[in-house]
């Protein structure tokens, strides 16, 4: 029986490490609400303020980011929702590339911002793009998504959340 112990340990490690290797495409968190930190951003285009009392979706993106292209259509769908204001924060990209991006794909953002020194990304714990946050009417972060917004995430998670936050 003891001779099977090393095999058992190996299988246990293989399963544990296997789970760690298979990362989901997107990582969602509906963590304990926390206040949106003050973000040092430079307005790039559009509405140059976060309007208090409105539900917001803040989306970090870049033109060089392939998953950002995939989620763009979902952001456009979300932007049609009158109960939601979508803001975009440019992550490590040039003005020229962003202008070309907007021209090619459209602009779902009410406000578009530059995070000049990365301080906004760091303040929110952003690791890369795309990453999105839903903020309620009181300025509390209620949902965080690391990875692209898929149709399933939009329909099954974000839109129901917006309805819930609107009713609060």
């Amino acid at each position: 029986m003891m001779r099977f112990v090393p095999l058992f340990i190996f299988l246990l490690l293989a399963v544990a490490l296997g789970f760690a290797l298979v990362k989901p495409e997107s990582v969602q968190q509906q963590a304990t609400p926390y206040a949106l930190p003050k973000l040092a951003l430079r307005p790039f285009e559009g509405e140059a303020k976060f309007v208090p009392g409105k539900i917001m979706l803040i989306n970090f993106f870049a033109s060089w980011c392939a998953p950002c292209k995939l989620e763009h259509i979902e952001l456009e769908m979300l932007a049609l929702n009158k109960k939601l204001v979508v803001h975009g924060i440019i992550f490590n990209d040039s003005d020229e590339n962003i202008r070309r991006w907007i021209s090619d794909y459209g602009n779902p953002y009410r406000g578009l911002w530059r995070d000049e020194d990365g301080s906004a990304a760091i303040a929110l714990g952003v690791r890369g793009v795309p990453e999105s946050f839903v903020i309620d009417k009181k300025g509390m972060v209620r949902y965080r998504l690391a990875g692209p917004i898929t149709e399933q995430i939009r329909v099954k998670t974000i839109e129901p959340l917006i309805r819930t936050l609107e009713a609060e």
Partner: protein
Amino acid sequence: MIRTLLFCLLLSAPAFAVTLEAPLPSPAQEQQAREIFTQLKCVVCEGQALGESDAPLAREMRVKIRSMVNEGQSEPEILAYFAKRYGDAILLEPPLTFATGLLWFAPLLFLVIGGLLIYRHSRAGGNLP
């Protein structure tokens, strides 16, 4: 002459990888900042310490750390700031908690189990392969 120049060019190649960042004016503060760099992981490049990574976000984090050191924030405060935003996984030495206990003690545990197995095997009179 050309060979000498080519040789010098070869020696200078690693310099292209260096990202120039403005150090803090105070050497003591710059040293403190660099020590903090060695305690955080790069969140973009797996397996790299923050001080070694050339990812843009890593550079921005180093600038942020220097700014916090310049403001007089302590090392524990700065590490806590990043751990709060990125989780304890950003720390190269995660704190000892219930959740990280396995991480800390697993190598010792495997050593003990392995030692016990070898001991039992030798007591049973078997030969190691």
